[in-house]
Protein backbone atom coordinates (compact mmCIF):
# COMPACT_ATOMS: atom_id res chain seq x y z
CA UNK A 1 0.00 0.00 0.00
CA UNK A 2 2.74 2.41 0.93
CA UNK A 3 5.22 1.39 -1.74
CA UNK A 4 3.91 3.43 -4.64
CA UNK A 5 3.57 6.81 -2.91
CA UNK A 6 6.88 6.57 -1.04
CA UNK A 7 8.79 5.78 -4.19
CA UNK A 8 6.89 8.35 -6.23
CA UNK A 9 7.57 11.27 -3.92
CA UNK A 10 11.39 11.08 -3.87
CA UNK A 11 11.32 10.67 -7.62
CA UNK A 12 9.26 13.78 -8.05
CA UNK A 13 11.51 15.69 -5.67
CA UNK A 14 14.67 14.66 -7.40
CA UNK A 15 15.08 17.81 -9.45
CA UNK A 16 17.76 18.16 -12.02
CA UNK A 17 20.48 20.30 -10.36
CA UNK A 18 20.99 22.28 -13.55
CA UNK A 19 17.33 23.22 -13.60
CA UNK A 20 17.58 24.21 -9.97
CA UNK A 21 20.50 26.45 -10.68
CA UNK A 22 18.68 28.02 -13.59
CA UNK A 23 15.78 28.62 -11.27
CA UNK A 24 17.97 30.41 -8.80
CA UNK A 25 19.62 32.51 -11.50
CA UNK A 26 16.29 33.53 -12.95
CA UNK A 27 15.06 34.50 -9.52
CA UNK A 28 18.12 36.64 -8.87
CA UNK A 29 17.94 38.29 -12.27
CA UNK A 30 14.33 39.24 -11.79
CA UNK A 31 15.10 40.50 -8.31
CA UNK A 32 17.93 42.57 -9.75
CA UNK A 33 15.68 44.04 -12.41
CA UNK A 34 13.09 45.04 -9.85
CA UNK A 35 15.86 46.65 -7.83
CA UNK A 36 16.88 48.65 -10.90
CA UNK A 37 13.49 50.32 -11.21
CA UNK A 38 13.43 51.17 -7.53
CA UNK A 39 16.94 52.53 -7.57
CA UNK A 40 16.21 54.64 -10.64
CA UNK A 41 13.35 56.30 -8.81
CA UNK A 42 15.55 56.76 -5.79
CA UNK A 43 18.32 58.28 -7.88
CA UNK A 44 15.91 60.69 -9.55
CA UNK A 45 14.65 61.66 -6.13
CA UNK A 46 18.15 62.28 -4.82
CA UNK A 47 19.15 64.21 -7.93
CA UNK A 48 16.09 66.45 -7.78
CA UNK A 49 16.57 67.20 -4.10
CA UNK A 50 20.27 67.79 -4.57
CA UNK A 51 19.72 70.35 -7.30
CA UNK A 52 16.97 72.07 -5.33
CA UNK A 53 18.72 72.27 -1.98
CA UNK A 54 20.92 75.22 -2.99
CA UNK A 55 17.86 77.41 -2.66
CA UNK A 56 18.10 76.93 1.08
CA UNK A 57 21.70 76.00 1.73
CA UNK A 58 23.81 78.03 -0.69
CA UNK A 59 24.28 81.54 0.65
CA UNK A 60 24.44 83.21 -2.76
CA UNK A 61 21.42 81.43 -4.21
CA UNK A 62 19.44 81.89 -1.01
CA UNK A 63 20.06 85.61 -1.07
CA UNK A 64 18.82 85.90 -4.62
CA UNK A 65 15.84 83.58 -4.39
CA UNK A 66 14.29 83.57 -0.94
CA UNK A 67 13.18 87.22 -0.69
CA UNK A 68 10.94 86.85 -3.74
CA UNK A 69 10.06 83.14 -3.56
CA UNK A 70 6.73 83.61 -1.81
CA UNK A 71 5.72 86.42 -4.14
CA UNK A 72 3.36 86.99 -7.00
CA UNK A 73 5.95 87.96 -9.57
CA UNK A 74 7.56 85.28 -11.71
CA UNK A 75 10.32 87.00 -13.68
CA UNK A 76 13.27 84.62 -13.51
CA UNK A 77 15.07 86.08 -16.52
CA UNK A 78 15.57 89.66 -15.53
CA UNK A 79 18.15 92.11 -14.27
CA UNK A 80 16.60 91.67 -10.85
CA UNK A 81 15.14 88.17 -11.06
CA UNK A 82 11.95 87.48 -9.18
CA UNK A 83 10.99 83.93 -8.37
CA UNK A 84 7.46 84.31 -7.01
CA UNK A 85 5.87 80.89 -7.26
CA UNK A 86 2.39 81.88 -6.10
CA UNK A 87 1.00 82.52 -9.61
CA UNK A 88 2.36 79.12 -10.67
CA UNK A 89 0.61 77.39 -7.78
CA UNK A 90 -2.58 79.25 -8.60
CA UNK A 91 -2.22 78.12 -12.20
CA UNK A 92 -1.80 74.49 -11.26
CA UNK A 93 -4.68 74.62 -8.78
CA UNK A 94 -6.96 76.28 -11.34
CA UNK A 95 -6.34 73.89 -14.20
CA UNK A 96 -6.40 70.86 -11.91
CA UNK A 97 -9.67 71.87 -10.29
CA UNK A 98 -11.33 72.44 -13.65
CA UNK A 99 -10.06 69.09 -14.88
CA UNK A 100 -11.28 67.28 -11.78
CA UNK A 101 -14.69 68.96 -11.77
CA UNK A 102 -15.16 67.61 -15.27
CA UNK A 103 -13.37 64.28 -15.00
CA UNK A 104 -14.67 62.96 -11.66
CA UNK A 105 -18.40 62.94 -12.46
CA UNK A 106 -17.86 61.74 -16.01
CA UNK A 107 -15.36 59.06 -15.06
CA UNK A 108 -17.18 57.72 -12.01
CA UNK A 109 -20.69 57.88 -13.43
CA UNK A 110 -19.75 56.28 -16.72
CA UNK A 111 -18.00 53.52 -14.78
CA UNK A 112 -21.16 53.04 -12.73
CA UNK A 113 -23.21 52.95 -15.90
CA UNK A 114 -20.85 50.47 -17.48
CA UNK A 115 -20.95 48.13 -14.47
CA UNK A 116 -24.60 48.39 -13.45
CA UNK A 117 -26.73 49.35 -16.39
CA UNK A 118 -25.00 49.00 -19.73
CA UNK A 119 -26.04 46.17 -22.02
CA UNK A 120 -23.16 43.92 -22.87
CA UNK A 121 -22.48 45.37 -26.31
CA UNK A 122 -22.35 48.96 -25.08
CA UNK A 123 -19.97 47.89 -22.37
CA UNK A 124 -17.80 46.23 -24.96
CA UNK A 125 -17.63 49.45 -26.95
CA UNK A 126 -17.39 51.85 -24.01
CA UNK A 127 -14.45 50.32 -22.21
CA UNK A 128 -12.02 50.02 -25.10
CA UNK A 129 -12.89 53.45 -26.43
CA UNK A 130 -12.24 55.12 -23.08
CA UNK A 131 -8.98 53.25 -22.85
CA UNK A 132 -8.16 54.44 -26.34
CA UNK A 133 -8.42 58.02 -25.09
CA UNK A 134 -5.89 57.11 -22.41
CA UNK A 135 -3.54 56.08 -25.18
CA UNK A 136 -3.70 59.47 -26.92
CA UNK A 137 -0.35 61.20 -26.57
CA UNK A 138 -0.72 64.42 -24.63
CA UNK A 139 0.86 66.38 -27.45
CA UNK A 140 -2.10 65.38 -29.61
CA UNK A 141 -4.58 66.48 -26.96
CA UNK A 142 -2.59 69.66 -26.49
CA UNK A 143 -2.63 70.40 -30.18
CA UNK A 144 -6.35 69.71 -30.34
CA UNK A 145 -6.87 72.09 -27.41
CA UNK A 146 -4.68 74.76 -28.99
CA UNK A 147 -6.22 74.66 -32.42
CA UNK A 148 -9.82 73.51 -32.00
CA UNK A 149 -10.98 73.50 -28.40
CA UNK A 150 -9.71 77.00 -27.66
CA UNK A 151 -11.80 78.41 -30.50
CA UNK A 152 -14.95 76.61 -29.34
CA UNK A 153 -14.56 77.68 -25.74
CA UNK A 154 -13.85 81.26 -26.74
CA UNK A 155 -17.02 81.33 -28.81
CA UNK A 156 -18.91 79.79 -25.89
CA UNK A 157 -17.57 82.00 -23.09
CA UNK A 158 -16.76 85.13 -25.07
CA UNK A 159 -13.46 85.44 -23.22
CA UNK A 160 -10.93 88.02 -24.33
CA UNK A 161 -8.10 85.50 -24.20
CA UNK A 162 -8.33 82.48 -26.43
CA UNK A 163 -5.80 80.44 -24.46
CA UNK A 164 -6.79 80.28 -20.82
CA UNK A 165 -7.05 78.06 -17.76
CA UNK A 166 -10.43 76.70 -18.86
CA UNK A 167 -9.07 75.37 -22.16
CA UNK A 168 -6.16 73.74 -20.32
CA UNK A 169 -8.42 72.25 -17.65
CA UNK A 170 -10.89 70.81 -20.12
CA UNK A 171 -8.06 69.29 -22.15
CA UNK A 172 -6.42 67.80 -19.05
CA UNK A 173 -9.74 66.23 -18.07
CA UNK A 174 -9.43 64.14 -21.22
CA UNK A 175 -6.36 62.50 -19.74
CA UNK A 176 -7.84 62.09 -16.26
CA UNK A 177 -11.17 60.59 -17.34
CA UNK A 178 -9.72 57.27 -18.59
CA UNK A 179 -7.76 56.77 -15.37
CA UNK A 180 -10.77 57.50 -13.18
CA UNK A 181 -13.05 55.42 -15.38
CA UNK A 182 -10.83 52.36 -15.56
CA UNK A 183 -10.00 52.14 -11.87
CA UNK A 184 -13.53 53.01 -10.73
CA UNK A 185 -14.87 50.39 -13.05
CA UNK A 186 -12.62 47.78 -11.51
CA UNK A 187 -13.64 48.83 -8.02
CA UNK A 188 -17.32 48.75 -8.90
CA UNK A 189 -17.04 45.35 -10.55
CA UNK A 190 -15.35 43.99 -7.43
CA UNK A 191 -18.39 44.71 -5.27
CA UNK A 192 -19.67 41.23 -4.33
CA UNK A 193 -22.73 40.02 -6.16
CA UNK A 194 -24.20 39.02 -2.81
CA UNK A 195 -24.43 42.67 -1.76
CA UNK A 196 -26.39 43.59 -4.86
CA UNK A 197 -28.65 40.58 -4.45
CA UNK A 198 -29.29 41.45 -0.83
CA UNK A 199 -30.24 44.94 -1.92
CA UNK A 200 -32.64 43.65 -4.57
CA UNK A 201 -34.08 41.19 -2.05
CA UNK A 202 -34.91 44.09 0.23
CA UNK A 203 -36.90 45.64 -2.58
CA UNK A 204 -34.42 48.25 -3.80
CA UNK A 205 -34.65 49.22 -7.44
CA UNK A 206 -31.68 48.94 -9.77
CA UNK A 207 -30.99 52.63 -9.46
CA UNK A 208 -31.16 52.55 -5.66
CA UNK A 209 -28.86 49.57 -5.57
CA UNK A 210 -26.36 51.30 -7.82
CA UNK A 211 -26.33 54.54 -5.87
CA UNK A 212 -26.83 53.50 -2.29
CA UNK A 213 -25.20 50.09 -2.20
CA UNK A 214 -22.66 49.56 -4.99
CA UNK A 215 -21.25 53.07 -5.15
CA UNK A 216 -20.58 53.36 -1.38
CA UNK A 217 -19.17 49.84 -1.27
CA UNK A 218 -16.70 50.69 -4.01
CA UNK A 219 -15.88 54.03 -2.42
CA UNK A 220 -12.25 53.27 -1.50
CA UNK A 221 -11.42 52.19 -5.02
CA UNK A 222 -13.18 55.19 -6.51
CA UNK A 223 -11.35 57.44 -4.10
CA UNK A 224 -8.08 55.91 -5.25
CA UNK A 225 -9.03 56.46 -8.87
CA UNK A 226 -9.75 60.11 -8.15
CA UNK A 227 -6.39 60.52 -6.43
CA UNK A 228 -4.57 58.94 -9.34
CA UNK A 229 -6.52 61.10 -11.78
CA UNK A 230 -5.59 64.12 -9.67
CA UNK A 231 -1.95 63.13 -9.81
CA UNK A 232 -2.14 62.89 -13.57
CA UNK A 233 -3.85 66.27 -13.82
CA UNK A 234 -1.27 68.00 -11.65
CA UNK A 235 1.61 66.40 -13.49
CA UNK A 236 0.36 67.08 -16.99
CA UNK A 237 2.82 69.36 -18.74
CA UNK A 238 2.56 69.48 -22.47
CA UNK A 239 -1.16 70.15 -22.64
CA UNK A 240 -1.01 73.14 -20.31
CA UNK A 241 2.13 74.37 -22.00
CA UNK A 242 0.31 74.45 -25.31
CA UNK A 243 -3.18 75.46 -24.28
CA UNK A 244 -3.09 77.90 -21.36
CA UNK A 245 -1.06 80.80 -22.74
CA UNK A 246 1.45 80.51 -19.88
CA UNK A 247 1.09 84.03 -18.51
CA UNK A 248 2.10 83.99 -14.83
CA UNK A 249 -0.81 86.01 -13.47
CA UNK A 250 -2.15 85.66 -9.93
CA UNK A 251 -5.77 85.64 -10.98
CA UNK A 252 -8.45 83.17 -10.00
CA UNK A 253 -10.49 83.88 -13.11
CA UNK A 254 -10.85 80.75 -15.19
CA UNK A 255 -10.82 82.81 -18.37
CA UNK A 256 -7.43 84.36 -17.76
CA UNK A 257 -4.31 82.87 -19.21
CA UNK A 258 -2.38 80.89 -16.63
CA UNK A 259 1.00 79.29 -16.05
CA UNK A 260 1.32 76.03 -14.15
CA UNK A 261 4.23 74.60 -12.19
CA UNK A 262 4.82 71.86 -14.72
CA UNK A 263 4.64 74.15 -17.74
CA UNK A 264 7.19 76.43 -16.11
CA UNK A 265 9.68 73.60 -15.77
CA UNK A 266 8.88 72.37 -19.26
CA UNK A 267 9.32 75.75 -20.87
CA UNK A 268 12.33 77.05 -18.99
CA UNK A 269 14.53 74.08 -18.21
CA UNK A 270 15.91 73.83 -21.73
CA UNK A 271 17.68 77.17 -21.65
CA UNK A 272 18.42 77.84 -18.06
CA UNK A 273 22.07 78.43 -17.17
CA UNK A 274 23.37 75.34 -15.42
CA UNK A 275 23.81 75.99 -11.70
CA UNK A 276 22.03 79.34 -11.85
CA UNK A 277 19.57 80.22 -9.05
CA UNK A 278 16.85 79.96 -11.69
CA UNK A 279 17.95 76.38 -12.31
CA UNK A 280 17.73 75.60 -8.60
CA UNK A 281 14.28 77.11 -8.35
CA UNK A 282 13.04 74.97 -11.23
CA UNK A 283 14.27 71.91 -9.37
CA UNK A 284 12.60 73.18 -6.23
CA UNK A 285 9.34 73.26 -8.16
CA UNK A 286 10.10 69.75 -9.35
CA UNK A 287 10.61 68.71 -5.74
CA UNK A 288 7.23 70.18 -4.78
CA UNK A 289 5.57 68.21 -7.55
CA UNK A 290 7.41 65.08 -6.54
CA UNK A 291 6.40 65.37 -2.90
CA UNK A 292 2.83 66.12 -3.87
CA UNK A 293 2.48 63.10 -6.12
CA UNK A 294 4.20 60.92 -3.55
CA UNK A 295 1.68 61.97 -0.91
CA UNK A 296 -1.18 61.29 -3.31
CA UNK A 297 0.14 57.84 -4.10
CA UNK A 298 0.78 57.02 -0.46
CA UNK A 299 -2.77 57.99 0.46
CA UNK A 300 -4.13 55.97 -2.43
CA UNK A 301 -2.04 53.00 -1.40
CA UNK A 302 -2.36 52.85 2.37
CA UNK A 303 -5.61 54.56 3.20
CA UNK A 304 -7.50 52.80 0.47
CA UNK A 305 -6.01 49.38 1.18
CA UNK A 306 -6.80 49.64 4.85
CA UNK A 307 -10.36 50.70 4.08
CA UNK A 308 -10.92 48.05 1.47
CA UNK A 309 -9.67 45.30 3.73
CA UNK A 310 -11.85 46.43 6.60
CA UNK A 311 -14.86 46.67 4.40
CA UNK A 312 -14.72 43.35 2.65
CA UNK A 313 -12.79 41.06 4.95
CA UNK A 314 -13.66 42.36 8.37
CA UNK A 315 -17.31 42.93 7.50
Amino acid sequence: MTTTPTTAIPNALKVNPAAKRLDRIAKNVIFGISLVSISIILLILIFTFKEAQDVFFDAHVRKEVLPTLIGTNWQPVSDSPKYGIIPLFIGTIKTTLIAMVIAVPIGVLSALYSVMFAPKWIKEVLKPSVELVAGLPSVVIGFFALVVLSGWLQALTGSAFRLNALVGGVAISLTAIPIIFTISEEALSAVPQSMKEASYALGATEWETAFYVVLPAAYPGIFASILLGLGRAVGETLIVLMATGNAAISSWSLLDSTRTLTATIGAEMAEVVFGDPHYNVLFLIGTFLFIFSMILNLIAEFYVKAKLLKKFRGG
Partner: protein
Amino acid sequence: MQRLRYAYIIVFTLLFGSCAVEEERPITIRGSDTMVAIGQKWAEVYMQQFPEATIQVNGGGSGTGISALINGIADICQSSRPMKKRERDIIKQKYGCEVIEIPVAKDGIVIYVHESNPLSEISIEQMKAIYTGKIRNWKELGWEDQAIVIYGRENSSGTYEFFKKRILDGADFDAHVQTLSGTGAIANAVAQDKYAIGYGGIAYSRGIKFLAAKATNDSPAVPASELTIADNTYPVSRDLYFYLVKEPQGRTRAFIDWVLSDEGQSLAIAEGYFPIRPIKSLRPETASTK
Protein backbone atom coordinates in the same frame (compact mmCIF):
# COMPACT_ATOMS: atom_id res chain seq x y z
CA MET B 1 46.02 35.99 -15.27
CA GLN B 2 42.36 36.25 -16.02
CA ARG B 3 42.30 39.78 -14.71
CA LEU B 4 45.31 40.72 -16.77
CA ARG B 5 43.57 39.56 -19.91
CA TYR B 6 40.61 41.76 -19.11
CA ALA B 7 42.94 44.66 -18.60
CA TYR B 8 44.46 44.06 -22.05
CA ILE B 9 41.07 43.99 -23.62
CA ILE B 10 40.07 47.22 -21.97
CA VAL B 11 43.29 48.97 -22.93
CA PHE B 12 43.01 47.88 -26.52
CA THR B 13 39.41 48.90 -26.79
CA LEU B 14 40.24 52.30 -25.43
CA LEU B 15 43.17 52.75 -27.75
CA PHE B 16 41.43 51.72 -30.91
CA GLY B 17 38.18 53.27 -29.84
CA SER B 18 39.77 56.65 -29.32
CA CYS B 19 41.73 56.38 -32.56
CA ALA B 20 38.55 55.71 -34.46
CA VAL B 21 36.88 58.65 -32.78
CA GLU B 22 39.79 60.93 -33.58
CA GLU B 23 39.72 59.85 -37.20
CA GLU B 24 36.08 60.47 -37.99
CA ARG B 25 35.19 62.93 -35.32
CA PRO B 26 32.32 65.00 -36.66
CA ILE B 27 32.02 68.69 -35.99
CA THR B 28 29.30 68.97 -33.38
CA ILE B 29 27.15 72.05 -33.39
CA ARG B 30 24.53 72.70 -30.74
CA GLY B 31 22.45 75.58 -29.57
CA SER B 32 19.74 78.00 -30.50
CA ASP B 33 16.46 76.66 -31.79
CA THR B 34 16.20 79.79 -33.92
CA MET B 35 19.36 78.78 -35.71
CA VAL B 36 18.79 75.04 -36.09
CA ALA B 37 17.28 75.40 -39.54
CA ILE B 38 20.08 77.55 -40.90
CA GLY B 39 22.74 75.46 -39.16
CA GLN B 40 21.39 72.30 -40.70
CA LYS B 41 21.19 73.91 -44.12
CA TRP B 42 24.81 75.01 -43.89
CA ALA B 43 25.87 71.54 -42.77
CA GLU B 44 23.87 69.83 -45.49
CA VAL B 45 25.21 71.91 -48.37
CA TYR B 46 28.73 71.89 -46.97
CA MET B 47 28.74 68.12 -46.62
CA GLN B 48 27.53 67.78 -50.19
CA GLN B 49 30.46 69.85 -51.37
CA PHE B 50 33.00 68.28 -49.05
CA PRO B 51 31.90 64.69 -48.51
CA GLU B 52 34.75 63.96 -46.09
CA ALA B 53 33.30 66.40 -43.55
CA THR B 54 30.72 65.30 -41.01
CA ILE B 55 28.75 67.95 -39.21
CA GLN B 56 26.06 67.31 -36.62
CA VAL B 57 23.64 70.09 -35.83
CA ASN B 58 21.32 69.99 -32.84
CA GLY B 59 18.99 72.50 -31.27
CA GLY B 60 17.86 72.69 -27.68
CA GLY B 61 18.26 76.40 -27.21
CA SER B 62 21.05 78.92 -26.90
CA GLY B 63 21.54 78.15 -23.21
CA THR B 64 21.73 74.43 -23.88
CA GLY B 65 24.30 75.07 -26.59
CA ILE B 66 26.38 77.24 -24.32
CA SER B 67 26.41 74.66 -21.56
CA ALA B 68 27.31 72.01 -24.16
CA LEU B 69 30.20 74.21 -25.22
CA ILE B 70 31.29 74.67 -21.63
CA ASN B 71 31.14 70.94 -20.98
CA GLY B 72 33.05 70.19 -24.16
CA ILE B 73 30.18 68.28 -25.79
CA ALA B 74 29.94 70.70 -28.69
CA ASP B 75 32.63 72.18 -30.90
CA ILE B 76 30.53 75.10 -31.97
CA CYS B 77 27.66 76.67 -30.11
CA GLN B 78 25.04 78.49 -32.12
CA SER B 79 23.49 81.25 -30.12
CA SER B 80 20.86 83.80 -30.95
CA ARG B 81 21.99 85.97 -28.06
CA PRO B 82 25.39 87.25 -27.06
CA MET B 83 26.91 85.24 -24.26
CA LYS B 84 26.38 86.55 -20.76
CA LYS B 85 29.18 87.64 -18.52
CA ARG B 86 28.57 84.75 -16.16
CA GLU B 87 28.94 82.28 -19.02
CA ARG B 88 32.01 84.00 -20.40
CA ASP B 89 33.57 83.85 -16.96
CA ILE B 90 32.95 80.13 -16.65
CA ILE B 91 34.62 79.53 -20.00
CA LYS B 92 37.56 81.73 -19.09
CA GLN B 93 37.95 79.82 -15.88
CA LYS B 94 37.72 76.43 -17.51
CA TYR B 95 39.62 76.97 -20.75
CA GLY B 96 41.88 79.83 -19.77
CA CYS B 97 40.93 82.03 -22.70
CA GLU B 98 38.16 84.33 -23.83
CA VAL B 99 35.36 82.68 -25.73
CA ILE B 100 35.51 83.26 -29.48
CA GLU B 101 32.49 85.00 -30.88
CA ILE B 102 31.73 84.95 -34.60
CA PRO B 103 28.60 86.67 -35.93
CA VAL B 104 27.38 84.47 -38.77
CA ALA B 105 24.01 85.87 -39.77
CA LYS B 106 21.38 88.41 -38.83
CA ASP B 107 17.84 88.02 -37.75
CA GLY B 108 15.17 90.65 -37.71
CA ILE B 109 12.45 90.70 -35.12
CA VAL B 110 9.20 91.27 -36.89
CA ILE B 111 6.02 92.44 -35.24
CA TYR B 112 2.88 90.60 -36.25
CA VAL B 113 -0.75 91.56 -35.94
CA HIS B 114 -3.93 90.03 -37.29
CA GLU B 115 -4.52 90.87 -40.94
CA SER B 116 -7.71 92.78 -40.13
CA ASN B 117 -5.78 95.14 -37.86
CA PRO B 118 -5.78 98.64 -39.40
CA LEU B 119 -2.39 99.56 -37.95
CA SER B 120 0.50 99.50 -40.39
CA GLU B 121 3.35 100.74 -38.26
CA ILE B 122 4.39 100.84 -34.65
CA SER B 123 7.16 102.54 -32.75
CA ILE B 124 9.50 100.86 -30.35
CA GLU B 125 8.10 103.01 -27.55
CA GLN B 126 4.61 101.77 -28.28
CA MET B 127 5.83 98.19 -28.34
CA LYS B 128 7.47 98.73 -25.01
CA ALA B 129 4.28 100.20 -23.56
CA ILE B 130 2.28 97.20 -24.79
CA TYR B 131 4.69 94.55 -23.55
CA THR B 132 5.22 96.14 -20.16
CA GLY B 133 1.49 96.51 -19.62
CA LYS B 134 1.14 100.28 -19.94
CA ILE B 135 -1.06 100.00 -23.01
CA ARG B 136 -3.67 97.31 -22.59
CA ASN B 137 -6.32 98.37 -25.07
CA TRP B 138 -6.29 98.83 -28.83
CA LYS B 139 -8.25 102.07 -28.31
CA GLU B 140 -5.06 103.73 -27.16
CA LEU B 141 -3.51 102.95 -30.52
CA GLY B 142 -6.53 104.25 -32.40
CA TRP B 143 -8.47 101.07 -33.00
CA GLU B 144 -11.47 99.38 -31.37
CA ASP B 145 -12.11 99.30 -27.64
CA GLN B 146 -10.74 95.79 -27.18
CA ALA B 147 -8.13 94.29 -24.88
CA ILE B 148 -4.82 93.59 -26.59
CA VAL B 149 -3.98 89.90 -26.55
CA ILE B 150 -0.23 89.91 -26.16
CA TYR B 151 1.88 86.97 -27.27
CA GLY B 152 5.57 86.55 -26.60
CA ARG B 153 8.25 83.91 -26.40
CA GLU B 154 9.21 81.72 -23.47
CA ASN B 155 11.93 83.21 -21.29
CA SER B 156 14.21 80.40 -22.41
CA SER B 157 14.38 81.76 -25.94
CA GLY B 158 17.09 83.98 -27.35
CA THR B 159 14.38 86.02 -29.03
CA TYR B 160 12.86 86.74 -25.61
CA GLU B 161 16.10 88.15 -24.31
CA PHE B 162 16.80 90.14 -27.41
CA PHE B 163 13.33 91.65 -27.34
CA LYS B 164 13.62 92.41 -23.66
CA LYS B 165 16.94 94.13 -24.10
CA ARG B 166 16.30 95.95 -27.35
CA ILE B 167 12.65 96.92 -27.01
CA LEU B 168 11.91 96.87 -23.31
CA ASP B 169 15.28 98.36 -22.33
CA GLY B 170 15.71 95.50 -19.90
CA ALA B 171 12.38 96.10 -18.15
CA ASP B 172 10.34 93.04 -17.21
CA PHE B 173 7.60 91.78 -19.44
CA ASP B 174 4.09 92.30 -18.14
CA ALA B 175 2.72 89.19 -16.46
CA HIS B 176 -0.16 89.18 -18.92
CA VAL B 177 2.08 88.41 -21.86
CA GLN B 178 1.14 84.91 -22.99
CA THR B 179 4.16 82.86 -23.87
CA LEU B 180 4.39 80.33 -26.64
CA SER B 181 7.28 78.31 -27.92
CA GLY B 182 8.47 79.29 -31.33
CA THR B 183 7.89 81.82 -34.05
CA GLY B 184 5.45 79.52 -35.80
CA ALA B 185 3.27 79.09 -32.72
CA ILE B 186 3.06 82.85 -32.25
CA ALA B 187 2.30 83.50 -35.89
CA ASN B 188 -0.50 80.92 -35.79
CA ALA B 189 -1.91 82.30 -32.56
CA VAL B 190 -1.92 85.84 -33.94
CA ALA B 191 -3.62 84.58 -37.08
CA GLN B 192 -6.43 83.18 -34.91
CA ASP B 193 -6.84 86.10 -32.54
CA LYS B 194 -8.18 89.25 -34.11
CA TYR B 195 -6.93 91.45 -31.29
CA ALA B 196 -3.52 89.88 -30.89
CA ILE B 197 0.01 91.14 -31.29
CA GLY B 198 3.17 89.06 -31.37
CA TYR B 199 6.79 89.05 -32.40
CA GLY B 200 9.34 86.68 -33.84
CA GLY B 201 11.38 85.97 -36.92
CA ILE B 202 10.06 86.45 -40.42
CA ALA B 203 7.31 83.90 -40.50
CA TYR B 204 5.01 83.09 -43.28
CA SER B 205 1.53 82.54 -42.06
CA ARG B 206 -1.84 83.22 -43.49
CA GLY B 207 -3.89 85.75 -41.59
CA ILE B 208 -1.10 87.87 -40.16
CA LYS B 209 0.65 90.99 -41.31
CA PHE B 210 3.92 92.62 -40.35
CA LEU B 211 4.05 96.10 -38.88
CA ALA B 212 6.73 98.49 -40.03
CA ALA B 213 8.90 99.56 -37.13
CA LYS B 214 9.86 103.06 -36.05
CA ALA B 215 12.91 103.62 -33.90
CA THR B 216 11.24 106.54 -32.15
CA ASN B 217 7.75 107.97 -32.38
CA ASP B 218 8.88 110.56 -34.96
CA SER B 219 11.28 108.56 -37.07
CA PRO B 220 10.20 107.04 -40.37
CA ALA B 221 8.66 103.59 -40.38
CA VAL B 222 10.88 100.89 -41.86
CA PRO B 223 9.42 97.63 -43.11
CA ALA B 224 11.37 94.51 -42.28
CA SER B 225 13.28 93.25 -45.28
CA GLU B 226 16.56 91.71 -46.29
CA LEU B 227 17.97 95.08 -47.21
CA THR B 228 16.78 97.10 -44.25
CA ILE B 229 18.05 94.47 -41.84
CA ALA B 230 21.40 93.88 -43.51
CA ASP B 231 22.16 97.60 -43.64
CA ASN B 232 20.85 98.18 -40.09
CA THR B 233 18.09 100.64 -41.00
CA TYR B 234 15.46 98.29 -39.60
CA PRO B 235 15.57 99.09 -35.91
CA VAL B 236 15.03 95.64 -34.44
CA SER B 237 17.64 93.24 -35.73
CA ARG B 238 20.20 91.11 -34.04
CA ASP B 239 23.28 89.11 -34.80
CA LEU B 240 23.34 85.34 -34.65
CA TYR B 241 26.58 83.85 -33.39
CA PHE B 242 28.89 80.91 -33.47
CA TYR B 243 30.80 80.46 -30.22
CA LEU B 244 33.96 78.44 -29.79
CA VAL B 245 36.25 77.87 -26.86
CA LYS B 246 39.40 77.68 -28.91
CA GLU B 247 40.70 79.18 -32.14
CA PRO B 248 39.09 77.12 -34.93
CA GLN B 249 41.48 74.92 -36.83
CA GLY B 250 41.43 72.46 -39.67
CA ARG B 251 37.98 71.34 -40.63
CA THR B 252 36.19 73.57 -38.19
CA ARG B 253 38.00 76.60 -39.54
CA ALA B 254 37.26 75.59 -43.14
CA PHE B 255 33.59 75.22 -42.32
CA ILE B 256 33.34 78.58 -40.58
CA ASP B 257 35.15 80.34 -43.41
CA TRP B 258 32.71 78.79 -45.82
CA VAL B 259 29.72 79.91 -43.72
CA LEU B 260 31.02 83.47 -43.83
CA SER B 261 31.63 83.34 -47.57
CA ASP B 262 29.10 84.77 -49.99
CA GLU B 263 27.84 81.27 -50.62
CA GLY B 264 27.16 80.54 -46.95
CA GLN B 265 25.60 83.95 -46.48
CA SER B 266 23.28 83.59 -49.44
CA LEU B 267 22.07 80.30 -47.91
CA ALA B 268 21.17 82.30 -44.82
CA ILE B 269 19.00 84.52 -47.00
CA ALA B 270 17.37 81.52 -48.59
CA GLU B 271 16.46 80.23 -45.11
CA GLY B 272 14.73 83.48 -44.10
CA TYR B 273 17.62 85.06 -42.22
CA PHE B 274 19.80 87.92 -43.26
CA PRO B 275 23.46 88.21 -44.22
CA ILE B 276 25.90 89.57 -41.74
CA ARG B 277 26.98 92.23 -44.22
CA PRO B 278 25.23 93.50 -47.33
CA ILE B 279 26.40 91.00 -49.92
CA LYS B 280 25.75 91.11 -53.60
CA SER B 281 22.54 89.30 -53.01
CA LEU B 282 21.47 86.57 -55.35
CA ARG B 283 18.06 88.08 -55.11
CA PRO B 284 18.16 91.78 -55.97
CA GLU B 285 15.09 93.09 -54.18
CA THR B 286 13.28 92.23 -51.00
CA ALA B 287 11.44 89.01 -51.52
CA SER B 288 11.16 88.14 -47.88
CA THR B 289 8.89 90.94 -46.68
CA LYS B 290 5.74 89.63 -48.23
